[in-house]
């Protein structure tokens, strides 16, 4: 397809997940457009992580669908795809940033290997080219390229998170999922990471779904916001509008930081 495609990149329809008799989330619908950042907020246990796992093809929904517009313009239901296709998508067109960097990185492998893995997975076989690409990505996430051969074990929390981001962005994904990307980091480290994320997402025109319990993160990063409670969306809209003028009592409580998150 040429020019801009106005259709949503991701269309979520009636997404529901039951863990046995325990509800994970129910009847979630929304569209996500190219370059758009969507925040998902809500108290602990409201279904944010469940939703993110369903969206990113890591967990199969009990019902409902996740429809993705591919680079060639064709539309595909993520759970109707073959497993190899889905996994390929996950490694190339999509990214996933875990709150716990240890889940998103190979801790025993050098930073260069961590960043280069996706390239090798899609068939890159030139060592120098892989290394150059890894270097330039370390640079973009503000990691000194002298650290390219060190393992993330020797990295600080903030660096690990930035390395995780580089590892995901190296294949120029169109869509990235983040679960509490700044969770567990010092405030000053958080600020730097947020600033970096905001710039990268804007520069690369990446769409993102960011789960966060931190409304400041939502405000800084996202265009739109989804407020979840007990597994359902209770309010959604433009981030600034929802946060400045919440219509639901629950959101009002959330904004005034009364609810435990």
């Amino acid at each position, binding site marked *: 397809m040429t020019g801009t495609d106005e259709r949503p990149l991701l269309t979520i329809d009636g997404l529901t997940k039951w863990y046995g008799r325990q509800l994970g989330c129910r009847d979630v619908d929304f569209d996500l457009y190219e370059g758009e950042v969507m925040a998902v907020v809500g108290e602990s246990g409201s279904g944010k992580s469940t939703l993110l796992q369903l969206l990113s093809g890591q967990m199969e929904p009990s019902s409902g669908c996740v429809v993705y517009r591919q680079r060639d313009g064709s539309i595909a239901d993520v759970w109707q795809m073959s*497993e*190899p296709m889905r*996994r390929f998508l996950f*490694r190339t067109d999509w990214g996933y940033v875990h709150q716990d960097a240890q889940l998103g990185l*190979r801790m025993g*492998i*050098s930073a*260069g*290997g961590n960043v*280069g*893995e*996706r390239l*090798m*997975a*899609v068939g890159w*076989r*030139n*060592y*120098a080219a*892989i*290394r150059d690409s890894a270097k330039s990505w370390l640079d973009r996430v503000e990691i000194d390229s002298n650290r*390219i*051969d060190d393992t993330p074990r020797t990295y600080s929390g903030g660096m690990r998170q930035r390395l995780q981001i580089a590892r995901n962005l190296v294949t120029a994904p169109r869509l990235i999922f983040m679960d509490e990307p700044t969770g567990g980091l010092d405030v000053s480290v958080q600020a730097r990471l947020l600033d970096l994320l905001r710039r990268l997402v804007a520069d690369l025109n990446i769409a993102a779904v960011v789960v966060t319990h931190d409304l400041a993160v939502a405000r800084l990063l996202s265009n739109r916001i989804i407020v979840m409670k007990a597994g359902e969306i209770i309010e959604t809209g433009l981030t600034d509008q929802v946060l400045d003028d919440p219509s639901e009592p629950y959101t009002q409580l959330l904004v005034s930081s009364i609810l435990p998150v």
Partner: protein
Amino acid sequence: MTAPVYNFAYLDEQTKRMIRRAILKAIAIPGYQVPFASREMPMPYGWGTGGVQVTASIIGPDDILKVIDQGSDDTTNAVSIRKFFSRTAGVRTTTATREATVIQTRHRIPETPLTEDQVLVYQVPIPEPLRFLEPRETETRRMHALSEYGLMHVKLYEDIARHGHIATTYAYPVKVAQRYVMDPSPIPKFDNPKLTDCPALQLFGAGREKRIYAIPPYTPVVSLDFDDHPFEPYRHDAQCELCGAADSYLDEVITDDNGSRMFVCSDTDYCETRRATGKGAQQSAPATEHRS
């Protein structure tokens, strides 16, 4: 005292049939690790119980068995496996590669080219080439199923990043018949080129890990590498000081307490055969070649 009565080649017929079915499946899917119900053998793991079970399942009364351990026919391990089969199967044994119909090996491929009439049985400690990077068995199986082998190159990448070259010298990963990535067992990478297009059937048995895999005769086997760091078999830049061979894999042997050392063929049969036919270090050393 009455000697215990064994079935031919120790294993009972039903067990052998089960193992043969696994072997047939392995041959049908070159490089694929077939699970099998590995049996306890009267020797400890690490002594080649996987290879012994494979050999026991394919050997017949007319076979002639050779057993090597790192190229040598006379280590304790090789001798005891040979004895085991001459006692339990009454088969002839040999140290001559040319004469053998079944060769069980630990960590080497003989220098003498193999033929269609031979089967090479490898003893395998760790069959899973992805294990080092991905410890989860469910995940490595899926990676094989979907041919997701990027991780294998991550391992080679790490080698180059650390050492400036691919420093993996043993158990160097290969791709079999353009499909499965396979660990060739801890043979030196010098032996990797012998894996491909080999006239002999190659069978791999891992006892502790309960896996059998195979390379059928004349199967293409490629060592993984990068375009700008191509696979290179390694050999000491020297000749065998006993037989003068300049093409064989060499062991470095310490000869006295002062640290004197010499290079000799790791394949003892190859070396002895050359010497018996009049080849020696002095006679055959080409004048133009010097050891560095």
